[in-house]
């Protein structure tokens, strides 16, 4: 594996057994949560994973964390195959991949002080057993997460902090283990607009100062656009478009990406555009359509789409799209 890569995911699949819907149902239905995801992440890169609910974004994160066992495919993390790790090896790996969760109002235990919360991962992983060292490490993590000086915060409880500060504590809990990869699942969607930029800038700083790679899971491409180097758009368990943020936003190729971009509200009334509103049933991961999985909702469908399943194809440079359409409207090629 290329030395610049921190993560390489190949043809990753995760199928869940569907719950029985009634007493006579056979219960052999499957949910195709991830249906062949391939992805590479460079060291120090921030990648956005965008898509609607149910497209598999969070399943991908859980699978990368080894919290779900993939059905097939492989995950290479920092040169090591971690697809089926167990026991100690798995724990070692998890230390280096940490998650930042969505809702800092729910994810912090209200009866633990900030010190205890941030120290807990160290206890779980039996690191820095000396109390003095542990204290130093906790303080360092808090300051790295922008809670400076740590003295002000370390003895407080979550309810004494604002939403932005709480989210910084969540980030500190991840940083205390010195991870090289952060999986941030909608890290700002629960925060007020006026403080979102704080957390986004914090993630950007961590990348710059510590070279931490980030997978930024979001349904909001406008937020993603701000700090991410590349965007991967997911639809029904698969990546349908992948490219640099600038390229994907300026020249989206896949009709799904185009629609998704067109409905993102722009905070300027002078930029009101025609929204491409997708009709048809919302995607159901139990029944993947034949051919292109997007074809039942696609405004640009033609015959081939119903039969052949498109894989990611190169549009230009690193820009890839899983769509049979020719390189449409891409004049600057």
């Amino acid at each position, binding site marked *: 594996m290329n030395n610049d890569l921190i993560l390489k995911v190949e043809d990753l699949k995760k199928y869940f057994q569907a719950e029985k819907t009634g007493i006579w149902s056979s219960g052999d239905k499957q949910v195709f949560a991830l249906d062949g995801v391939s992805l590479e992440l460079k060291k120090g890169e921030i990648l956005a994973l965008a898509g*609607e*609910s149910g497209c598999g974004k969070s399943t991908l994160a859980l699978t990368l964390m080894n919290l779900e066992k993939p059905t097939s495919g492989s995950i290479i993390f920092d040169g090591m195959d971690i697809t089926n790790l167990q026991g100690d090896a798995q724990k070692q790996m998890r230390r280096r991949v940490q998650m930042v969760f969505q809702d800092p109002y729910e994810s912090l235990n209200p009866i633990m002080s900030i010190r205890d919360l941030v120290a807990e991962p160290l206890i779980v992983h039996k690191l820095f057993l000396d109390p003095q060292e542990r204290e130093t490490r906790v303080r360092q993590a808090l300051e790295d997460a922008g809670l400076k000086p740590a003295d002000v915060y370390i003895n407080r409880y979550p309810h004494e902090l*604002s*939403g*932005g500060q709480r989210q910084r504590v969540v980030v500190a809990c991840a940083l205390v283990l010195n991870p090289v990869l952060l999986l941030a699942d909608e890290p700002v969607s629960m925060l*007020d*607009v*006026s*403080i*979102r*930029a*704080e957390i*986004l*800038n914090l993630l950007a700083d961590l990348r710059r100062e510590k070279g931490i790679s980030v997978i930024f899971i979001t*349904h*909001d*491409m*406008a*937020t993603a*656009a*701000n700090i991410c180097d590349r965007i991967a758009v997911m639809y029904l368990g698969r990546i349908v478009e992948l490219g640099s*943020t*600038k390229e994907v*936003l300026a020249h989206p190729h896949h009709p799904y990406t185009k*629609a*998704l*971009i067109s*409905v*993102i*509200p*722009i*905070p*300027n*009334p*002078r*930029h*009101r555009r025609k*929204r491409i*509103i*997708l009709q048809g049933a*919302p995607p159901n991961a139990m029944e993947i359509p034949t051919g292109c999985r997007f074809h039942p909702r696609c405004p640009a469908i033609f015959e081939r789409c119903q039969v052949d399943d498109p894989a990611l194809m190169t549009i230009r440079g690193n820009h890839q799209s899983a769509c049979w359409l020719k390189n449409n409207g891409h004049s600057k090629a």
Partner: protein
Amino acid sequence: MSSPKNPPALLEVRNLSVEFMPNKNTHLKAVQDVSFSLHEGELLGLVGESGCGKTTMMLSLLRLLPEAGRITGGKILYRNQDLLDLEESQMSDYRWKEIAIIFQGAMNALNPVRTVHDQIAEAITCHELKTPKEKLDTRVNDLLEMVGIPASRGSQYPFQFSGGMRQRVMIAMALACSPSIVIADEPTTALDVMIQAQILELLQELSRQLGLAVILVTHDLGVVAEICDHVLVMYAGVTAEYGDVDTIYNHPVHPYTQNLIKAFPNLANPLDSLISIPGYPPRLDALPAGCRFEPRCLKAFDRCKIDQPPVYELKDRHQASCFLVEGQK
């Protein structure tokens, strides 16, 4: 907007103030001196951070405040009738029939064991007693079609509907008694962007077709810019700024509005760096002595610490509460 040709406002709120009294000695000024107007077919966006008084103000309009809340001043003129002068029994002629409300998260409050049709019918019979069965059924079917749900799905239960569809049911319920104003409190907050776009399109369409006035309560500046005509920006219970969308987004005068817009990611200029507004809104029991935004304001000067700025009327329904605009017209 203020030309004499225009009909009088449907709703005019003047200097509304609301207090909460959790106990005898505590007076929390949740809303102070807020004024705005709403015309037929107009979409007003009400934006602000959590806890800025958006929901309190909406509840006051229908006099639905919780027990500890009290309207302490101002007027709520609906077609020139001050709703605050009415007896409680008269208020029910206005609730739902004239002003309906889609509560935040209400789509999750549908009764799981009754059909959607029944629940919409109930909204009608609650207010218009003795509606004949056939008339009722036709009306419910019309309402369902109006919000884009096939009438045949009326016999289904809420669990058979997706989040977006349930929100459509809520909108149908709000329209049940043909109100002139619908207040939608965070109607798209829990929904995906694509579903959000569908719901916004629906609200816009209804406003156009029925001449419905909509107050859209949200924290999402993008949504407001997309569909609203006017915007009221609230901060800690006071009007920060009020005006038409173009003024608010392109020529904001209040430092809070200016920063809030820069804090919101804009896909049209994705690489603009976002700013954050340091600090957080004051608690209602510890309001600053002067301007409520002063502790977070980069343009604050001495006077801001001492005096609370009044709401200055600028031209064309534009208001701002900042000393920086004093004397401007």
